[in-house]
């Protein structure tokens, strides 16, 4: 009879305790790996908010602030870019495409973004994924609007519905441009990014709804009808920011320097990836806290394994003594105990991995659709394997403590227990 068979039969004899220990380790491993997947998934989803854009240009501001208002629609710009500067930048030979963004209005709590149809063509997220229309088409008429997936779902809008844009960005700012309603012509497919939570109108439309406004308020007694507005010059005077795609990535830093040193007005150009990374480092404390918690879970599970093994050793002193009396050396007993704890840890680690994939397959579509959190389902990577390896090694190491105690105990000590 091999030692392994002896270990397996002994484990089978204590299967309830063993199964509970294995389950404890498995759940801890699942929790740890899930938190790691969520953490990396959240970071990747965050980093994938925008891609394919080489530079974001705005008025002179900090990197993170520019990123927050131009991409995440959080906060406001301290200043705008003049239309002349925008045109000048757009005309540079390095520029492949440029998409303006004009912010300042809202619709029932959702930011209104004044832009061009180019936005839907050039904006990319999650590894160069294009925006897609779930229904309808892009902007065509002056008072057309395209809405994000969250807006459509939350407010129950469909293509053809009419909506009114409010002046300002507060939730209470419902009064505003009710004389110039927009028609929903398109609803974007879900992206899991801030794109889902915005209302898109033409850049000229932003000018159109403000022709009878001045200094943040409607000019008393002035109401210019839509028909007259259509014939007016609606060239914007300013834009809030611009997304820029360059013909060659090699020119990125040179072009960034050109914008940052722009003579006509103080401007800032940021690399979205770098700014995203800076922003993520600000929320990195929470990420590290999450890692620490999951690490503690694993440590607790391994302490549980040691406790279980030590408790079972007390029950098994006689079993060990019988083996010793029949010729098993203290070293053999130690190997037996260490192999047993290693087997328990291995079974726990593998079961934990199986639980993880079960969870991933079950929850991935839900997390993507509800929270915009896309978790990749890949084969276990090096980090996963390292964690599993550490759990198994820690399990074997945990077996050293009862093994050492068994080694130190004399044979007579075990034989003196009466069953």
């Amino acid at each position, binding site marked *: 009879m091999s030692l392994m068979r002896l270990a397996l039969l002994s484990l089978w004899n204590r299967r309830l305790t063993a199964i509970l220990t294995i389950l404890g380790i498995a759940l801890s491993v699942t929790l740890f790996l899930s938190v790691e997947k969520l953490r990396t998934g959240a970071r990747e989803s965050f980093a994938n908010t925008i891609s394919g854009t080489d530079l974001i240009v705005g008025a002179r501001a900090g990197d993170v602030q520019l990123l927050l208002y131009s991409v995440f629609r959080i906060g406001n710009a301290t200043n705008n870019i003049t239309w002349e500067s925008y045109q000048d930048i757009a005309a540079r030979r390095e520029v492949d495409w440029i998409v303006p963004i004009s912010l300042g209005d809202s619709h029932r709590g959702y930011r209104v973004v004044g832009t061009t149809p180019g936005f839907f063509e050039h904006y990319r997220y999650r590894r160069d994924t294009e925006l897609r229309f779930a229904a309808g088409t892009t902007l065509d008429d002056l008072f057309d609007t395209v809405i994000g997936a969250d807006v459509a779902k939350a407010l129950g809008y469909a293509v053809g519905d009419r909506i009114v844009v409010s002046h300002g960005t507060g939730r209470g700012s419902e009064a505003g441009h009710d004389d110039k309603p927009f028609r929903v012509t398109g609803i974007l497919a879900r992206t899991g990014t801030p794109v889902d939570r915005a209302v898109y109108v033409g850049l000229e439309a932003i000018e159109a709804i403000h022709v009878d406004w001045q200094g943040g308020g409607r000019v008393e007694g002035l109401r210019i009808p839509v028909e007259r507005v259509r014939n007016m010059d609606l060239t914007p005077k300013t834009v809030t920011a611009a997304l820029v795609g360059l013909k060659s990535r090699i020119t990125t830093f040179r072009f960034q320097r050109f914008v940052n040193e722009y003579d006509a007005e103080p401007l800032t150009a940021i690399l979205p990836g770098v700014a995203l990374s800076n922003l993520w480092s600000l929320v990195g404390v929470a990420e590290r806290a999450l890692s620490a918690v999951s690490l503690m879970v694993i440590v607790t599970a391994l302490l549980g394994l040691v406790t279980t093994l030590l408790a079972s050793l007390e029950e098994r002193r006689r079993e060990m003594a*019988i083996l010793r009396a*029949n*010729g098993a050396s203290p070293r053999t007993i130690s190997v037996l105990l260490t192999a047993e704890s290693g087997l328990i840890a291995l079974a726990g680690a593998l079961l934990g991995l199986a639980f993880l994939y079960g969870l991933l397959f079950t929850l991935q579509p839900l997390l993507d659709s509800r929270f915009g959190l896309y978790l990749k389902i890949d084969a276990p990577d090096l980090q996963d394997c390292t964690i599993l390896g550490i759990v198994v090694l820690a399990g074997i190491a945990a077996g050293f403590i009862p093994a050492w105690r068994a080694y130190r105990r004399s044979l*007579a*000590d075990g034989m003196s227990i009466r069953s």
Partner: protein
Amino acid sequence: MSNSEHALSIRGTAFAWEGGFGLEIAAFDLHARERVLLLGPSGGGKSTFLNLVAGITTPSRGQIDVLGTDIAQLRGSRVDRFRVDSFGIIFQMFNLMPWLSAIDNVLVPLRFSRLRRSRTGDARAEASRLLGALGIEKTLFDQRAGTLSVGQQQRVAAARALIGGPGIILADEPTSALDRANARAFLDLLFAELEAAKAALLMVSHDETLADAFDRVVRLDDIARVTGNPEGSAAA
């Protein structure tokens, strides 16, 4: 080895537990193929005597010569290996692995003794033969030892001690849980197998009625002296 040769020879051996209780053995001999009953009262040091002989406890002084080797001089895994090569032990509480089958329990010593394994040939066949010879029904061979009756467990323990032909069988009150008739029947079966295996038997007991079945009866009081108080010690 002739019958007159020593299978076991003890000279001037002493051992003391932590609490002060101890045993001093002046001299004791067990000849090859001899069946000796060592009589002594409960708590009188009989188990300590057997533990010393088997190398389970190490004496503080003296010599315990087993089949030509002084077991008192062996240390670590060498004593474990020597024990399983030289002795078959039937414990008072049988000490079977309750979760192993009867036949797997019999096979345990062969896992650790190359010598006994080499003497056995087909291990499972020999284990089955021994179990059968000791009165265990074939249907019980694969049954977990923990589910067997006391009498059946005792026979499995005897088969485990006999497998592989160790030179000496040590038995610690193996009949204490049996009535007189069953104790006799068990001894008859054991002696038949001892004869076949040409092994010596040293059995300790407090039951004087068993004396006539043995070649020789030795009283522990005559060969050993108990020192200290057994009640205050770790084991007796």
